C-alpha cells in the first residue's frame, strides 16, 4: 500500500525543543532497530537553545541518487527515497558528501548507506512515522496540508530550497514564519537592561559584587 497521498510530512524548527525523542524513537523502528536514521542539530548552542531535527527531505530529484555510481538509491512511486540497496551499495560515500541536507549515513559495519525512509513500514501501512508520532512539541508533523495550515496560521510550508545554483524541491515541507519577526533576545543580558541592543550591556549586576570584592 503506498503512503496516503493526502498525508504529508512537515518540519517546524520553531517548535523544536531539542529533546531527541525523535532520534530515540527512530532507533526503535523495526527495520533498523538500535540505529537512529535521523539526528538533531544545535544551530549554535553558545548563543541559543535553537535545535533542528534532521530527517530526509525526500527530494523530487534526489542528489544522493543522482551521484550514486552504483544506482543503489531508489525512490518509490509515492516519492519516498529509500536506504541504499544492499547488493548494489559500494559504500563509496558519494551520497553522504553530496546531500545538501546532510541526511545519509554510512554504516561502515554493514558497508551500507542507510537513511531515513519516512518509516516506510509504518507510513505504507497507514500509520505515521515514528518520529512524527512521538515528537512532543509538534516540530515534526505528519498529516494533511489542510490540517497544518489550519492549526499553524503563523507559519507557511515551504518545499523549495536553493543551494548555490541548485534548486531542490522536496516531498517534505519546512514550516517557516509567515511574518518575519524581530528577534528580541538572544542574550539574557540584553533582556535585563533598558534599551540595550544586545552586546553593549552595562553589567551593573556583576560589577556590584565584584567591585565590593576588589575593595575588600
Amino acid at each position: 500500500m503506498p503512503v496516503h497521498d493526502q498525508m504529508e510530512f512537515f518540519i517546524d524548527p520553531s517548535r523544536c525543543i531539542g529533546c531527541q525523542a525523535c532520534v530515540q524513537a527512530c532507533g526503535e523502528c523495526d527495520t533498523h532497530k538500535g540505529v537512529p536514521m535521523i539526528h538533531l542539530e544545535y544551530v549554535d548552542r553558545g548563543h541559543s537553545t535553537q535545535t533542528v531535527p534532521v530527517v530526509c527531505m525526500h527530494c523530487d530529484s534526489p542528489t544522493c541518487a543522482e551521484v550514486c555510481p552504483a544506482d543503489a538509491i531508489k525512490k518509490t512511486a509515492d516519492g519516498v527515497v529509500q536506504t541504499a540497496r544492499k547488493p548494489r551499495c559500494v559504500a563509496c560515500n558519494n551520497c553522504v558528501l553530496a546531500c545538501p541536507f546532510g541526511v545519509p549515513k554510512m554504516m561502515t559495519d554493514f558497508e551500507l548507506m542507510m537513511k531515513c525512509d519516512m518509516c516506510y513500514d509504518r507510513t505504507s501501512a497507514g500509520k505515521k512515522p515514528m518520529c512524527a508520532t512521538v515528537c512532543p512539541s509538534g516540530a515534526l508533523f505528519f498529516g494533511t496540508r489542510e490540517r497544518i495550515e489550519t492549526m499553524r496560521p503563523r507559519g507557511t510550508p515551504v518545499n523549495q530550497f536553493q543551494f548555490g545554483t541548485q534548486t531542490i524541491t522536496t516531498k517534505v515541507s519546512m514550516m517557516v514564519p509567515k511574518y518575519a519577526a524581530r528577534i528580541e533576545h538572544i542574550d539574557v543580558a540584553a533582556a535585563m537592561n533598558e534599551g540595550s541592543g544586545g552586546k553593549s550591556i552595562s553589567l551593573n549586576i556583576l560589577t556590584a559584587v565584584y567591585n565590593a570584592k576588589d575593595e575588600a
Partner: protein
Amino acid sequence: MAIEPVPELQIIDRFGPHRLYSKGARLESGSEPDRLVQTHCCFCGMQCGIQLKVKGNEVIGFEPWEEFPFNKGMLCPKGVKRYLQGSHPDRLLTAYQRDPDSPNGFRTLPYDQAIKRVAAEIDRIQKAHGPDSFAVLGGASLTTEKAYLLGKFARVCLRTSNIDYNGRLCMVSAAAANKKAFGVDRAANPWDDILKAKVIWISGSNVAECFPILTDYIWQARENGARVIVVDPRITPIARTCDLFLPVKPGRDIALFNGILNLMIENNWLDHDFIQQHTVGFEQTAEHVREWTPRKTAEVTGIAERSIRQAAEWWGTASSSFLMHARGIEHHTHGVQNCLGAINIVLASGRIGREGCGYGTITGQGNGQGGREHGQKCDQLPGARDIENPSHRAHMAQFWGITPEELPRAGVDAYEMFRRIGRGEIKGMLSICFNPMVSLPDTTFVKWMLERLEFFVVIDFFMSETSRHADIVLPGSLHEEDEGTVTSAEGRVIKINKAIDCPGDARQDWRIIQDIAKALGRERGFTFGSPNEIFQELRGASAGGIADYSGITYEKIEQNMGVFWPCPSEDHPGTPRLFEKGSWNPIAKGAGPYYFPDGRARFNVAPYSPPAEDVDVDFPVILTTGRVVSQFLSGNQTRRIGPLVDQTPEPVIEIHPLLAEKHGIEDGDWVRIESRRSVCTLQARIVTTIRPDTVFVPYHWAGRKSINQVTIAAQDPISKIPEYKVCAVRLIRQYDPPDYLKELEPQQ
C-alpha cells in the same frame, strides 16, 4: 549501621549504575510482541499514555498510544526508552544484607529471612526508644495504592509519626499556597484550557525539558493567538519563542508578582465583580503591594522596567489566561509566598474557574498529586485530610479501627528527619522510592546522618546511592510489574497496568510492606490480596474528604481514559475544572466554589524576602539547579538506560560568557564550584542563554558529580521545601580534570 560497607567503586562494580542498550529480542527485526499493554510512563507528572510491547516476561519495546487524549501518542526520550529499565543487569533479584567481608559489600539472603530481620530490628528499636524512633520515607512515584498503604503502615502498624516522602522536594510550596488561597490542593484546570487562553504566563518552569508534551499545548495556544510570557533566569527552549521574556534574578519572583499586582491596581486592570463576590482579603493585599513600584520591582528582580510594564499590561487586559508555575518559584525559602503572589494576580484578574481561564502548578513526579493526597505526607491523612484536625483524626481512626489517641500526630518533614537522626531521636528508617543521597541538599550532611542510624532498610529495584548505606535491601517492583492508579498533574486519576511479573525474589512493594506487618505480628488491616482491594479501601477512606475518590473505579478509569477528582459517587463524571460557578464542595456546601466555609478564595499578603544565602564577596555567584530532558530526578532509573545516558552523559555548568571571562573560563574547561557546604568540579558550557550573575547545574548525578553537595539545606518555614534554586558559590578554573574522570563511567 548505615555505613557503606566497602568503597564506592566496589559496590558500583557489581550493582552499577551500568548502561543497558537494546539486545536480543529487543533488537531483532520482526520480533513480534505477545501482547501490547496500555499503561502510562513511569516518570513525570504528565503521565503520558504508552503501550508496552511484551514478549514472554520481558518488555521489548513500545508502541505509541495515539488514542490517549492527553498526549495522543507523543512521548519524550525518557518515555521512548523507559522499557530498557526492565531485564537490566543491575536489577535486584534477591534480598541483600550489608556485608563488609563481601567484595561488593552485600551478600544475598532469602527473602523471608530478610523480612524477619527487618521486623526484629523495628521491634527492637521501637521497644527501646519508642514508636517515633523508627521513621518511614516514601515517594511520589509510588501508585496511590502503595502511598495509601505506606501511610497506614506507618501510623497503624508502626504507630510512628515520622513518615514523609520525596514530594517534600517537589511541589509542597504550591500545595501549601493552594490550600491557603483556595482551600484545596489541585491544579485548578485541565491542560485543555491552555489551548483556549489568550495570555499564558509561565513562571519558573523549564516546560520543554521537564514536561515536554505540555509544550505542544502552549505553542498551539500561541498559534491560536495567545501571547506567552516566560519568567526564568535562563532562555530555556520554551522561552526561546515566547513573546515576552522576563529574566528574573533567582529568588525574586514574589517581588515580580507584587509589582504586577500593583500595576494592575494602578491601571484598574481588575475584575471588581469577581473580587467582591468571590474573594476576601483584597484590600490588605493591595495595600501591601503599593510599595512595589515598577522601579523598585525592576531593581529587585533584575528585569527591565519596560518589560515589567508590558507583562502587567498583557496580563491585566487579557480576555482569558492560564498561569502555570513549577519548581522554579517553589524551591525557595519563600516558595509558598512566591506561589501566593502568583495566585494573587490570578484572583485579581478574575480569570479562573471557567473555560480558557486557569491556573496550576505543574507537578513534577508521576504521582506527585495522588502520592500526597492519601497519607504519606507527615501532616496529611487519606482524602487530603489534616492530621491535626480533630474531626479528621476521629474519622480516620474509626475507619482504621483504632482510637484517635492511638493515631500518631503530625510528624516532621523528610529533611528534619535527618536532623533528628543527628539528635539521636530517630534510630531506624525504612525508605522506598526515595534517593536522598542524590536528591536532598547538602548530601555530605545526609550521608553523616545515614551513618548514624542503627538500622536502615531500603525497598528498591536497583541499588541506589542511598541503598548502598542499607543494612537490608528488599527487592521491590518496577512500574511495569504492578498495577494501580496515579493522579497526573492535572488531577486526572489514571490506571497503571501490569505488563510483566516481578523477576526472581522481587515482590510488588505493597506485598513487602504487608509481609513486614505480618512479621511484626500486626497484620490486621494489611491482608490485601490485590491493588484493587487497597483501592476499594482508599475509596472509602477518601469519601467525604476533599480529595474524594469514592466514585472512581478501575473500570471507570479505563472506560473514560481517566477520571478527574473529586468524584464523590459512581454516577459522578469527575471534575476536570475546579471552581466553576455554582459548583459544590464538601467545605463550602454550596456557599461558593472555593473550599472554605464561605466559598470564597483568599488573597494573601505575600511579603518579599531575599534568599537564605545571598551572594557576597566570598561567594559572588548565584547557583541554581534543575533538570535535563533525558534524565529523571535522582537518575536511579535513567542513569542505567544507555541511550539516555549518551544523550546527556554528565552534568555541565552553564556560565554566561561575561561571567566566564571574569574567571578566565573557556568552553569545556573544568570548573570547581565551591559553596559553604562543599565543592563539585564539572565542565563548563559557555552560553548566553543564562543571566550573567547566575550559573546552572542539573542535579541528576550522584557522588562527586552531585551538585547537591553544594546546595543549601535552608527550607521554607511553611512548606519545608529546600531552597534548591538559589545559593551562593564561587568558581575556580581547574587545569586538571577531577579524579572521577578516570575512575567512573559518565553515569556513575
